[in-house]
């Protein structure tokens, strides 16, 4: 089959959108029944809420999943695909008379409900779903549907589309445990599952947990000590408050948001050119640090530019919608890419704020959720008003300049100086000086004469032949290859391999590159003169040059040089008619080029223009032409004005240099007259359907409350309307995952009907309501969560945890997980003392194995290692190149941010072990950590080990641990004593200085111990 159009995801092409079906044939529980206790599947699937045989059937819990999996494809919200006029996702559609005259569902009357008959029948011709789909309802499912119809067939809206209401706080048996309301929701569920909560974690674990969770860094030993010795009941809260108030809080929170905002330092597509967007990263850090209410955070990022008198910061915030990938690929269709940019904005909007798969409606109406394709393009229209080009690199309009430090003041000063000088200059130009005006007439005469010298003859097109290779430039210069004697265009040379070739693109008056090395190239052209006349040739060459006119040599210069204009000047006489000019340009290796002109000032476009002006007679000159000639004369010929003009040019250059040095950032702006937005039929950017205008999807979501505006600001305000069911839930769900590893809605990127239901629906609603009612107070929300008993639980794993709830969805224990990529590195830097805690600024280039960019990217893409502090900044400042991520980051599951990413997986691989074992970042950290141990850890092994573990883990070593480390130390010490070179080598790794005050063998041995400590599971784990 040869599609007429693109292979888009659409059934109407005859290719059914199979993706939308769950495939039959994989009854996992049955296949693996012997391997996995069924109980686990139950708990992890819907956290124990399966339909029981008693109690009322719930549409949302029990019925919708059956319909969604088996029926919605043909009987769902998508009108285009609907069969038999039956719609099962709404009561009205499901209970009305069918085309056949039957009723699919008659509430309360299973016998009359045709749906039950057709799903149960053994007749495969009649049965639903149709046999060709390969799916069939099982008996339990049919029983559930029967009971549901019997009980009155009540439809419920999908939970996520109903605004959250503050739920009643559930009663619990163990009144002693809860500290916060949150705990009652969690405990009620645990009591139901007969899974007791865990005790509070050790104090040093709590200190470390709080520190990682709130700052992304380990606590210092002093912080831990202070917390351990503070016996007051408020000790925990005090520590929490201190960490929440630290500047590192914003850096920690930014990691998650930057994944969502697909923030990166490069364009992403094709050549993956670097871009300046770091100011956005700093905005995010700052917003969290100053506890910008989350609703403001949303509004500023979506529509900061549309706020009244937006601040620079608010405009920077809108870079959220310019962080998407962009391309400069040659031959790409700008319209195609523009469409990609806008759809990326819509899809990101849907994922980040709505937790919805709105992107499914790019090509067709959503199969399961109430989003039509039209609604998709109505959202598209909000984001389709940016005055951007389809293909563009930095600075890609619209952008703003963001001065830092003294840049703004310097620019102001330079502007001022330039305009003062400009005023002075203008006075001199305007000055009435008749004697100058007289002299100007003569000057104009000279201009006309110079122009005449370039006239009266016609230059033919260049032809060339070559390169004629020789052993050396000198040999090539001497050797007569043929054209010297006869530059006949029909002749070929070197056994026919070299032929004369026309060069219509070669331009006089600028150096022209040639191909070849240690070779000669011949250039030929005719010069046709009206009559005999003198002519001056202005020549240049890289390297040697010989010239013949009409067969007679006029210059011969055997030289090794770089090309420039007017290196040689040759006066010749043209004969009337055709003259034959032959150049031989010889290369001595390296660059190869020539320069030719018949005008000394060929490169000076201004002069050429002035000559043209001078030719116009006085009375015919327009006022601006008169002014131009006058200014040019005075600037060129009157010394004091010439000086003034030069000074002005220098000042203007200074101003422009400062201006250029100020970093830009791409931002959002709406065009005064927006483009039209169309439905793109089947998602094909070239197939424009109906024109649509901005609007929000209202089939399931509330309409906009704002009146009179339909721009991004209205869209942003709609998101944070009090009755919006998604924004707050989606946000608190993600925050929750930072502290418990798993979100409450496990599919944090899909709150629609195909997502998983929340493990604790009431808790989610409680948190969402609290969050909004607190004024979207992020720090307040986090404090509430972190003060809870649920959060403070120990993360030790009990046997019943593994059997009853291996994923910890019920939260009967604290979360224990490997640190995210950034924190793995930051932790090592912090422990060693190398970490440089500077907030914000352009992205930096820490260690990276050499050659990675050079091997894969266009030539010229070189990774230039940073220096000094840049090597030790926190990892969120590491240059994020989308096509080749820093390998340390990538190995620890950091996403490339090509698209918005909601959650990172947490893997454990041998490649990660290799990074912390061998990456110079970590080996250098071990070496510097060893020095720190020597300086601060006392002088005997026991006190040093104690210091080292307290620095790395916040706790002293246990007796076994101490013994193991002592064993490592003495063995490794012996190795380095026997091999001093090795000791010297390991101390050379990285750029940090080596202290001369310690014994090198000892330092090397302790570097080994430090390497062990930095590689411990506990070190890279938040417990």
């Amino acid at each position, binding site marked *: 089959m040869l599609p007429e159009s693109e292979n888009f995801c659409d059934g109407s092409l005859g290719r059914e959108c199979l993706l939308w079906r769950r495939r039959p044939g994989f009854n996992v529980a049955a296949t693996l029944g012997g391997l996995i206790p069924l109980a686990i599947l139950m708990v992890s699937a819907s956290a124990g809420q399966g339909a029981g045989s008693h109690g009322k059937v719930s549409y949302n819990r029990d019925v919708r999943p059956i319909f969604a999996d088996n029926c919605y494809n043909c009987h769902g919200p998508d009108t285009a695909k609907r069969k038999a006029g039956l719609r099962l996702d709404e009561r009205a559609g499901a209970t009305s008379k069918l085309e056949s005259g039957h009723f699919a569902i008659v509430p309360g009357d299973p016998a009359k409900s045709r749906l039950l008959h057709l799903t149960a029948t053994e007749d495969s011709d009649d049965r639903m779903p149709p046999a060709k789909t390969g799916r069939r309802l099982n008996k339990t499912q049919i029983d559930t549907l029967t009971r549901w119809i019997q009980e009155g067939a009540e439809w419920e809206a999908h939970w996520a589309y109903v605004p959250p209401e503050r739920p009643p706080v559930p009663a619990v048996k163990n009144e002693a445990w809860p500290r916060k309301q949150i705990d009652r929701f969690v405990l009620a569920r645990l009591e139901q599952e007969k899974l007791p909560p865990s005790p509070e974690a050790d104090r040093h674990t709590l200190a470390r947990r709080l520190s990682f969770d709130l700052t992304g860094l380990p606590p210092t030993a002093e912080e831990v000590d202070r917390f351990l010795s503070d016996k007051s009941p408020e000790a925990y809260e005090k520590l929490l408050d201190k960490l929440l108030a630290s500047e590192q809080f914003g850096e920690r929170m930014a990691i998650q948001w930057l994944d969502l905002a697909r923030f990166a330092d490069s364009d992403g597509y094709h050549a993956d050119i670097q871009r300046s967007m770091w100011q956005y990263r700093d905005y995010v850090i700052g917003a969290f640090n100053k506890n910008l209410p989350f609703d403001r955070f949303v509004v500023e990022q979506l529509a900061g530019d549309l706020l009244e008198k937006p601040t620079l910061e608010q405009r920077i915030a809108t870079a959220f919608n310019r962080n998407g990938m962009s391309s400069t690929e040659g*031959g790409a269709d700008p319209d195609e890419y523009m469409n990609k940019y806008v759809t990326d904005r819509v899809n990101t909007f849907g994922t980040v704020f709505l937790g919805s798969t709105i992107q499914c409606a790019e090509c067709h109406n959503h199969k399961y959720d109430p989003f039509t394709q039209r609604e998709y393009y109505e959202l598209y229209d909000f984001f389709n008003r940016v005055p951007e080009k389809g293909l563009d690199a930095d600075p890609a309009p619209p952008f703003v300049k963001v001065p830092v430090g003294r840049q703004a003041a310097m620019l102001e000063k330079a502007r001022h100086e330039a305009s003062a000088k400009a005023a002075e200059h203008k006075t001199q130009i305007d000055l009435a000086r008749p004697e100058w005006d007289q002299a100007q007439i003569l000057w104009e005469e000279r201009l006309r004469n110079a122009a005449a010298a370039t006239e009266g003859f016609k230059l033919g097109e260049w032809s060339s032949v070559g390169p004629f290779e020789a052993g050396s430039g000198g040999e090539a210069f001497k050797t007569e290859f043929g054209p010297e004697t006869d530059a006949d265009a029909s002749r070929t040379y070197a056994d026919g391999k070299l032929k004369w070739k026309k060069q219509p693109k070669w331009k006089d008056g600028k150096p022209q590159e040639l191909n070849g090395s240690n070779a000669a190239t011949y250039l030929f052209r005719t010069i046709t003169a009206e009559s005999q006349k003198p002519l001056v040739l202005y020549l240049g060459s890289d390297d040697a040059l010989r010239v013949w006119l009409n067969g007679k040599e006029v210059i011969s210069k055997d030289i090794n040089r770089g090309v420039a204009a007017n290196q040689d000047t040759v006066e010749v006489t043209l004969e009337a008619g055709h003259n034959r000019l032959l150049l031989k340009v010889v290369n001595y290796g390296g660059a190869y080029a020539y320069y030719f002109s018949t005008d000394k000032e060929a490169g000076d476009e201004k002069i050429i223009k002035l000559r043209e002006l001078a030719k116009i007679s006085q009375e015919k000159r327009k006022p601006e032409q008169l002014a131009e000639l006058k200014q040019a004369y005075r600037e060129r010929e009157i010394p004091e004005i010439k000086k003034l003009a030069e000074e002005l040019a220098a000042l203007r250059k200074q101003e422009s240099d400062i201006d250029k040095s100020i970093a830009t950032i791409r931002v959002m702006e709406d065009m005064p007259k927006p483009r039209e937005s169309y439905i793109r039929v089947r998602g094909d950017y070239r197939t424009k359907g109906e024109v649509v205008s901005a609007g929000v999807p209202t089939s399931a979501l509330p309409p906009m409350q704002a009146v009179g505006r339909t721009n991004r600001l209205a869209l942003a305000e709609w998101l944070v309307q009090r009755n919006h069911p998604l924004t707050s839930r989606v946000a608190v769900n993600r925050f929750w995952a930072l502290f418990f590893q798993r979100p409450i809605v496990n599919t944090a990127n899909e709150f629609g009907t195909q997502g998983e239901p929340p493990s604790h629906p009431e808790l989610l609603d409680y948190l969402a309501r609290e969050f909004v009612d607190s004024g979207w107070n992020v720090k307040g929300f986090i404090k509430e969560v972190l003060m809870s008993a649920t959060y403070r639980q120990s993360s030790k794993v009990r046997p019943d945890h593994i059997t009853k709830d291996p994923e910890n969805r019920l939260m009967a224990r604290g979360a224990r997980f490997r640190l995210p990529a950034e924190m793995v590195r930051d932790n090592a830097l912090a422990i060693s003392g190398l970490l440089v805690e500077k907030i914000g600024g352009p992205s930096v280039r820490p260690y990276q194995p050499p*050659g990675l960019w050079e091997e894969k990217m266009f030539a010229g893409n070189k990774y230039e290692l940073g220096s000094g502090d840049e090597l030790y900044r926190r990892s969120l400042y590491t240059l994020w190149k989308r*096509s080749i991520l820093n390998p340390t980051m990538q190995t620890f599951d950091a996403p490339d941010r090509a698209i918005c990413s909601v959650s990172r997986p947490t893997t454990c691989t041998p490649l990660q072990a290799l990074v912390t074992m*061998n990456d110079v970042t970590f*080996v250098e950290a071990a070496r510097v950590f060893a020095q720190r141990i020597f300086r601060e850890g006392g002088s005997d092994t026991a006190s040093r080990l104690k210091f080292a573990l307290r620095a790395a883990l916040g706790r002293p070593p246990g007796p076994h641990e101490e013994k193991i480390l002592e064993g*490592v130390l003495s063995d490794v010490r012996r190795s380095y004593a026997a091999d001093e070179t090795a000791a010297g080598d*390991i101390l050379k790794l990285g750029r940090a200085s080596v202290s001369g005050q310690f014994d090198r063998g000892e330092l090397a041995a302790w570097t*080994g111990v430090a390497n062990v400590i930095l590689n411990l599971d506990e070190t890279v784990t938040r417990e």
Partner: protein
Amino acid sequence: MNSHLISFDAACARMTRRHFFNRAARGIGVAALTSLMRSSAIGLTPAASANSARALTSLHFEPKAKRVIYLFQSGAPSQLDLFDYKPKLTEMNGKPMPESLTKGQRIAQLMGQPLNCVGSKFKFTKHGGSGAEISELLPNIASISDDIAIIKSMHTEAINHDPGVTLMQTGHQQAGRPAMGAWISYGLGSENEQLPAFVVLASGFGNDQPLLSRYWGSGFLPTGHQGVEFRSGGEPVLFVNNPSGISSKVRRRLLDGVRDLNQIKLGDVGDPEIATRIESYEMAYRMQTSVPELMDIAKEPKQIIDAYGAEPGKSSYANNCLLARRLAERGVRFIQLYHRGWDHHNNLPADITNTSRLVDRPTAALFKDLKQRGLLEDTLVIWGGEFGRTPMNQGDSTNGNYGRDHHMKAFSIWMAGAGIKKGVSIGATDEFGYNVVEDPIHANDFQATVMHLLGIRHTDFTYRFQGRDYRLTDIGGELIKGVLA
């Protein structure tokens, strides 16, 4: 150290078990599940004893191939100068292409320029019993033409490199989907206990089209399935070498310390993740010897090195072909080569000659080497790029010079080895080589066929992400029946 049966992705498997529990109830492909339970591909090797009954039902068909070597020719080789002979273009050289073909069609860099035919200046000859017409640029590949299946009717909907490669490798133009190798790694795991299932080798430098690491990314699959790059220059796997000053003996002693301390931790907190980490360190240690050994092609016999034209110590396509065989021998599932250097917009005659010289001989040498060792029987070999090149000229056309722009309507690839019919040619283009006129094959069809050969029904091998079941073949995929033996 006791090191029995700890595999490269055992580590991944353990950690993924969480994902697994999570997804099990939501229905992921069984093949994927089994790989999580056991590292070896079940049903593929006789050694997969005890559980093989269940495992066999887990693959949808009897697999023909155990592994894939995909020789990706990045930049888009000109099918019209290599495999798809069009005398009509030579006849019409310099004359306008018929407007009936080009009108309203998407065009890349030739936008707004005259569209004139350009014939290949290279000689095409019929080869072998199959009579495959292959140009003089590929004499060595021509010599194996009776063993390969050439598909001349590939088409795509991407006209630029980045989306083009992305589509061929991930089944979709947009970034974010897993690469074919990642799917296979996820589905079948590794056959080798010590190597990743998906290995990437790249060659070509300078101003050739860039290679973006997302081409071998894991998309929404667990990140452990992304391709692991093995480099024939520099460190063979990033960070695999001990830093200078840490000998293998010291490293072992340090790792013993790490292991012993982690064991204490495991006993203390009982988190199975710690056991996974302990395993991952042991695996890493073994990789420190097995990877450099694997990458050391200097140990190959001289006649083998010469046959490939390999140069130990350098980074080249020839070296990578030889490494591909070594990886295949060791049971790596998906060996993805990339060679940059086929984007011949202008100066095509000179440049394609050069690239062909670098690629032709090693490719054929690899094929013959696999065949001679019996590896070809269960190894699928694929050769091809991301799209084709135009029958229309681009750039300088004097003195026999010419160039070709991107073309998405038709291009050629070839497949060979496990389960592939020998000496056949599938599909045809019109006399100008502009449109496919017989047996059109889309990227998704090609991907479906690769899956099929590995024993997987592509429509049934899905992964749920954002509430949607994704698969490699997006919404398409028809088997290319004509290439199946």
